[in-house]
């Protein structure tokens, strides 16, 4: 393992979350496709999404989308303003702070119904 810095970590997380979101999208296309076979099958598929374990996966999906979006903005800023590359580390930590500020309340809101 090459011991790269924050930039390498940001890239690895970006890649993992990107691939994860893509895999989810394939599944999501498949479940939406089922509506073509009538409401029973579709409703049955939708019921799976209400399982608690799937809810936990949805929290992970929210985390992946949020990180990918925020780090994507970081990359866009560096793309269009090369001078910002000097601040890429600080921007990575800023991504982390904004991520936590948005993700923690979202995760609590998503998980809370499971305990009622």
């Amino acid at each position, binding site marked *: 393992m090459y011991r*790269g810095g924050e*930039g390498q970590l940001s890239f690895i997380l970006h890649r993992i979350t990107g691939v994860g979101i893509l895999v989810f999208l394939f599944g999501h296309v498949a479940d939406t496709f089922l509506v073509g076979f009538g409401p029973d099958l579709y409703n049955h598929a939708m019921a799976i999404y209400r399982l608690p374990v799937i809810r936990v996966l949805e929290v992970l999906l929210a985390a992946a989308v949020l990180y990918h979006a925020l780090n994507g903005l970081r990359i866009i800023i560096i793309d269009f303003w090369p001078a910002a590359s000097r601040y890429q580390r600080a921007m990575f930590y800023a991504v982390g702070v904004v991520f936590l500020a948005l993700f923690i309340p979202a995760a609590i809101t998503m998980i809370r119904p499971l305990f009622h």
Partner: protein
Amino acid sequence: MKVELRIKRFDPEKDQKPRWADYQVEVEPTDRLLDALHYVKWYQDGSLTFRRSCAHGICGSDCMLINGVNRLACKVLVKDLGRRITVEPMRGYPVVKDLVVDMEKFFAAYRAVKPYLINDEPAGPRERLQSPAERERYDDTTKCILCGACTTSCPSFWANDDYIGPAAIVQAHRFIFDSRDRGAAERLEVLNQREGVWRCRTIFNCTDACPRDIEVTRAIQEVKRAILFQRI
């Protein structure tokens, strides 16, 4: 102080795959890693093979993977590396022997960006003058010593060794943004290919690895911008 060197060795005539070899070396804390490697080669095992020429951080011969990061062995001090030091050849190029890699593709990429002044306009009676501001524009990328630290630290390059790599882009940058040069369009054409600048994922390993403190990723971003907006 005593340090243990763990060196990844490979002898194509004997080994099927690389193996680790350990050496105990007595060094001064202010010795460079290259001094420790010399000690091994001169007094312990003469078969240890590595490149070095000037040994003063200018020729760019002795870049290697030291404790998991690309560094010049002649610039990094032993006291900054701890008691156990791992040394491996640079990643991504075929290993010739021990710490020596085949850099033919590296220099092919370098040649591909036409790293020389292109200007067909007849030279006047004096030098082709430029202002300090024009000189400053590409100052950072003139510092490159072609050691390969950036290119072999790049995950995009490990994944695809046809990627032209940060070092060649830095060299292209040095001429593209030179006010005396007229070859920018043909260089940007080369860098706008599949294996050109667009394989860069702004990972910044190159910038962190550069022993000359060149802002490599920034230079690549400036080249991307020049292609995108067709403006230098």
